[in-house]
């Protein structure tokens, strides 16, 4: 218990003392996981929509792959991305291993199935009659897609939250492909592992609390947006 107290005090010191290293680690975590989430949205949302709305051969297979991907173990992703990006690997010439870019790649692989899966679910939860009605009142295909996206935006926000939450809290892949290099690829989770290994439990607790606060803040913002929206709908009488 004493340790938790020490850790919390240390966390406040580091945050409000504007400790340069802690802030840069935090900022790097946000940047890397933010980028990864953005790319996951660019890839995952269209894939999810296609899987939800289109009917083609092999769809079930892809859906199963995406669903498996939603639970992909980060260390497995880390290992395979490392093997590809190591200098001795097939993509070694890109010299990407141990860079923030490599971490974004690994995190995208972790996050995009989550985004795709949740997008698919949110489009499938729309009333199928809706698209017929929209087409009936003369919507073109792009207009239809846009209107459906607007309808599904609340569950889509959930996809953003889940994707971001999944990657910012992930440690195995970041450690392997990033290398936990000070000032370059050290993020909140890998720094926590390092400080625990050093026996600096108070700093480790401080970093964990910052990570928790950060994910809470982001989810709070997104949830607020989502729930406000919800309240605008007319109450069922």
């Amino acid at each position: 218990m004493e340790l938790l107290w020490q850790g919390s005090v240390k966390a406040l010191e580091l945050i409000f003392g504007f400790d340069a290293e802690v802030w840069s680690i935090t900022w790097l975590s946000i940047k890397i996981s933010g980028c990864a989430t953005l790319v996951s949205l660019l890839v995952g949302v269209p894939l999810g929509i296609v899987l939800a709305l289109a009917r083609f051969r092999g769809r079930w297979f892809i859906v199963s792959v995406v669903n498996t991907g939603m639970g992909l173990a980060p260390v497995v992703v880390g290992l395979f991305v490392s093997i590809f990006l190591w200098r001795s690997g097939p993509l070694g010439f890109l010299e990407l291993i141990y860079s923030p870019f490599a971490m974004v790649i690994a995190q995208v692989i972790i996050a995009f199935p989550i985004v795709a899966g949740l997008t698919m679910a949110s489009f499938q939860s729309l009333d199928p009659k809706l698209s017929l009605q929209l087409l009936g009142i003369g919507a073109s295909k792009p207009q239809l897609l846009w209107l459906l996206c607007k309808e599904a935006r609340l569950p889509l926000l959930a996809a953003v939250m889940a994707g971001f939450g999944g990657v910012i809290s992930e440690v195995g892949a970041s450690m392997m492909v990033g290398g936990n290099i000070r000032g370059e690829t050290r993020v909140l989770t890998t720094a926590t592992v390092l400080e625990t290994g050093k026996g600096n439990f108070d700093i480790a607790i401080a970093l964990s609390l910052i990570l928790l606060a950060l994910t809470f803040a982001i989810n709070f913002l997104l949830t607020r947006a989502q729930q406000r929206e919800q309240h605008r709908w007319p109450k069922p009488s």
Partner: protein
Amino acid sequence: MRRTGLVSSLFTLVIALSFGSVAHGAEAGKQNVILSTTTSTQDSGLLDELVPLFEKQGGYSVKTISVGTGQALALGAKGDADVVLVHAPSLEKKYVADGKLRNRRLVMYNDFVIIGPKDDPAKIRSIKSATAALQAIAGAKANFVSRGDKSGTHTLERALWKKAGIEPKGSWYIEAGQGMGATLGIANERNAYTISDRGTYLAFKKRVSLPIWLEGDRALLNIYSVLEVNPTNGPRVNSAGGKAFADFMVAPEAQKVIRTFGEKKFGQPLFVPVAGKKEDELGA
């Protein structure tokens, strides 16, 4: 709707801004040197002092990858690193003999200690030799936690068991598969003996209630060497950079930092610098 739009566009803006800065990465124009080293050098904090000094000399930017000694050596052998700083002399010599690594030079040493439960169930407190102590521990079937991760410390432990003529197995022999810090934690919880490097033991002393029962045996010397990666190991080995870092580690400036490192935090230096010496000149 407006609110959602605002939040999501803010979010997108932050992400888009950050995209640019991530793509930039480390300072451009500097050549990267990949140093693969052990967790103990990283965890001690020594590299946090030495690496900036080296980078200040110009030219290179160091990427320090800290893993177990086994993996650190393997990364060098595959050409995935440029220079290796490790502490497993017998393994190192094998890699040098195979031509994968070269120009092995001693950098520093400290020592391992054998720690164990306060009541010393295997009665090793009067024993002076590490192998005899292990024999006593195995004989008493007293709990012993092994790193079990092919690290430098684990390599030394395996060598000691071999010398003791014992193949440790049974429920008393616990394989942690983790770093030294975590292993100390397990030993503490299980009230077990273990072998630790002195630096990590000092760092964890507050939380580990196992006293040192054996120290000072020459077999417990913990010798760190720097090795350069043979450029033929892979197409992209930065052998000039690797050599520059290796030269730096044995140069007077770095050796001076090593001599006093740890005094402030632990009241005693963690390493003894030994550049230029031979292995059999070290120790008591």
